[in-house]
């Protein structure tokens, strides 16, 4: 039986992959993808918690199933898209100036 712990493990693996991607990529889009992985780890967490821990609790009380976690996940997905849009626009702008999106090149501002 697949339970909460499996999902949490999955999310932990996703989180680790995401962090590793953020840390290792030089390409800005790569980093963005790492961020998305971490976000999805959070999503998995939220949905899994909702399903396994809390939805049942309210059902047991005779109420409709709680959907807080699911709602949160929805918002995260939407906002992640918006974030990607802004980030990509910024990367484009960066590319216009530096003809690359290698973040190692972004070293004018320092000190």
């Amino acid at each position, binding site marked *: 039986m697949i339970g909460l712990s499996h999902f949490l493990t999955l999310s932990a693996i996703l989180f680790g992959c995401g962090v590793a991607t953020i840390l290792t990529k030089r390409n800005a889009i790569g980093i963005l993808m790492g961020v998305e992985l971490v976000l999805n780890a959070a999503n998995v967490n939220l949905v899994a918690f909702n399903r396994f821990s809390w939805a049942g609790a309210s059902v047991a009380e005779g109420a409709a199933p709680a959907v807080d976690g699911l709602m949160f996940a929805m918002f995260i997905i939407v906002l992640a898209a918006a974030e990607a849009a802004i980030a990509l626009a*910024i990367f484009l702008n960066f590319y216009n100036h530096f003809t690359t999106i290698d973040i190692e090149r972004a070293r004018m501002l320092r000190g």
Partner: protein
Amino acid sequence: MTIGLPWSEVLTLLPELCLLAAVCVALIAPVLPPLRAMFRASHGPMTALAVVALAAALLSSIAMLGGWGGLSAPADTVLHGMLAVDPFALSVKVIIYAFTLLVVVLWMSTTRGSVRIADGPDYISLVLSGALGMSLMASATNLLMVFLAIEAASFPSYALAGFNKQTRRSSEASLKYVLIGAASSALMLYGLSMLYGYYGTLDLIPIAQRLAAEGMSAGLLMGVFGLLIGIGFKLSAVPIHFWCPDVFEGASIEITTFLSVASKAGAIALLVRVMMTLGHFSGEETRGALVGIGSFVGLVGVVTATWGNLAAYFQTNVKRLLAYSSIAHAGYMIMLAGLLTASMDNAQPADLAYALLFYLIVYACMNLGAFAVAAVVAKETGSESLDEYAGLGQRNAFLAVAMGCFLLSLFGMPLTGGFWGKVRFGFEMWGEGMWWLVAALVVNTVFSLYFYLKPIIIMVWKQPASVRVMSVSPAMYGVVGVSLLGVFATGLLPDRTTAWAQRHSAMVFTMPSQSDATTQAVAEGPVSSRAPGVAEVDR
């Protein structure tokens, strides 16, 4: 399942609605054929729109604070516990709106040239929506709302940091900003999901209650920590501060000004709300955990302030210098926020919030003033280097004296508002027995002297390349004058401001009652309202 929308509560969001309306107008109006020509002609109409919207938001917040025109601050959280429109939040909003208003004036009178007229509507809508997000941060009492507010404040900021598409620095700044912002928000979300997993609710108040009742565990800590990371990013707390100097340097100066105060005001309000709520519900059993969190936050504040002050030593760019200064000031404020739960017997932590409000007012005044002078100098000389301040006293004595006053106020010289801000902090820290925070405050003040004096030294002693008199527009005199007035009004006669802050530092810690929700034809109360012990929380 339907969730009812309590319309009377929506009215409490009047300031935000004003901004929202203005954003919509700014986005739609310029494409309407009858108005297109007008908006193409100059920045004037757009600026006017922004000013009107901000003024309306400001007035409505003030009205709600003062109970004018039938408006009032509700006694509970609103919108099913999503937002708290309490005096504290409203006060922070007043600060944010007034400040944004002045920033718009500053932009209009100095750096508007960097924004093409065609981009004006986008620019204004970004600024206004940024202000909207920041004001939501001040109100958020639900983790989902916290997340939304932070992102709502961040996205426009990312765009604004890179708004000046012509400069490489600007693009680099926005790149750094967005990447670090995205990473930190992702980390925050992971933490928030943990919190949800523990408590099954996203509302802060029940979370605080449960935490007080059940105590802390290492896993839960990850959740709290994630929340702190999200806020810390906006506050540029060490070690998530790296974006701050780079973005401040790269972005246009009015954006820097905006970010340095409004964004931090929202973030510190959020932090204070979180800490206060935790502190408010603490029980005897779990005091230790809260004290631990508070001490940790205080420690972060100390490190942030120290880092900011020391790193500012070698800056030669005025915006960078002020960026580090703002990091340091964020550090002081974080120190006080930590105090909210750090003390063993904080019987009335609400008494402490007024010190923060006071500080925010002063900080807004002096930072606005310093940036305004910097903007004028940058406009006149075309450079943001500190060397351009050489002989400023001879080029424009008013600017030089004003800049001196702002810097000394930032340092904390008596007779200026900055002094009272720090003294209030000191009073409260000492009063809570947190002597090490007092010591850190004092030591940091001493550290900071050096770099605040440096521009003064340059202004007074360095021989300028040219002694051409700097001309300043009346509007800028107005902005600088208002800031100066603020600095000295809070410095010479701090009583009025203190009293104002004390009157308006109250927060609500109650969820909307079941009956309120049912009158709005709600089938079920919000999820969070089922949390135990809600009804008798206010002690």
